[in-house]
């Protein structure tokens, strides 16, 4: 089908004004959303300096990072292997230092995910991602979930851009950090991206084999059952612990 530009140059020229305004507004919105996240990161880091965070997830991460126990074998752990590696790498001298590092990783991962969405699915997608995620931002900045989102978005982006091997491997990595990214391989396989599914299966199999060899055969069960927790969550784990 011929493009509008080749058949109706006048209409295109007249539409340029409003379109350019929309583009500028869109770019301004993106910058505002990015700056809002930078502000959240700065406020969080300053508040951690003033008052030691007590949020259970941060305390748990710091406990795990400073523990000498062998994960899954010596003590039950609810996190998959890639997340344990990240926790080890991010643990600081005290809880406040660990929390500050987590917030910096959140910011990088969140903006990284937006960048991937923008370059693969367009600026509108990146803007929608940043708008939707803004109300959650103060409540998720000290978790590693957004890092997993960035890995998963990267894996799916590679797979839909005909880089199925890289997509499959990256999605397997994401699934070794959190389990949910494994779901996305279902929709990719159904859409005919079988090569991504094969690489995902091989990579995940190798990763799980190494995990079980290190952590024992009970390690995956500890993660799937949250250390054997049976209770119903009441939806309050996002309770904020710093002054936002």
């Amino acid at each position, binding site marked *: 089908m011929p493009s509008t530009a080749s058949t109706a140059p006048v209409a295109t020229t007249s539409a340029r004004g409003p379109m350019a305004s929309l583009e500028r507004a869109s770019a301004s919105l993106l910058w505002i959303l990015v700056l809002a996240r930078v502000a959240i990161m700065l406020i969080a880091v300053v508040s951690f300096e003033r008052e030691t965070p007590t949020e*259970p*997830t941060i305390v*748990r991460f710091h406990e795990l990072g400073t523990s000498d126990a062998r994960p899954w074998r010596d003590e039950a752990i*609810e996190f998959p292997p890639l997340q344990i590696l990240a926790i080890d790498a991010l643990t600081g001298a005290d809880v406040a230092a660990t929390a500050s590092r987590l917030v910096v990783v959140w910011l990088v991962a969140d903006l990284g*995910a937006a960048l991937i*969405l923008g370059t*693969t*699915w*367009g600026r*509108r*997608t*990146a803007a*929608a*991602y940043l*708008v*939707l*995620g803004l*109300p*959650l931002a*103060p*409540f*998720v900045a000290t*978790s590693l*979930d*957004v890092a*997993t*989102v960035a890995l*998963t*978005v990267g894996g*799916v982006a590679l797979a*839909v*851009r*005909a880089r199925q091997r890289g997509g499959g491997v990256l999605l397997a990595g994401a699934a070794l950090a959190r389990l*949910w990214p494994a*779901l*996305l391989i*279902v*929709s*990719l396989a*159904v*859409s005919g*991206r079988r090569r991504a599914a094969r690489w995902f299966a091989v990579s995940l199999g190798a990763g799980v084999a190494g995990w079980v060899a290190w952590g024992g055969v009970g390690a995956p069960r500890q993660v799937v059952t*949250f*250390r*054997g*927790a*049976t*209770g*119903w*969550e*009441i*939806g*309050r*784990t*996002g*309770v*904020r612990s710093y002054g936002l």
Partner: protein
Amino acid sequence: MTGGPIRDDAGAFRVGSASAWQSALLGAGFLACAFAIAWQQQRARARPDGRVALALVASLLFFSPIVSAPYVTWLVPWAAIAWSKEDDAAALAFTFAVCIATVVPNGLTDSLILFQLVTIARNLLVGWLVARVALGVPRPRPEPSESP
């Protein structure tokens, strides 16, 4: 309804205890929904990264005994893609409502009724994100052949 006091269990505030049959029922429900979503995707030749991905991830949350703010972030990129690539404004609006209804209860801890109402509404919205694709409503638009 679930019984017992609120306790900190494996990093989350929980009440009661899920029995084996309840856990099995939730697992079966999740698998059935995932299968239905995949079937609908195959039937409509829908793209894998928009509302189908959103529904798959939402089905895991809907049947999970835990839904917290970090988990809700899992929905966000697929809702953004559904809106921008499938013109699915409902996916964007419902997901935004889920995000808001996840953080609002943090300010409602003094009002049990409001807390419960907002939380139940959030869970129903997550369920709707699943049902609208698993039941084929609306039917996903075919995936375009060109790369994005």
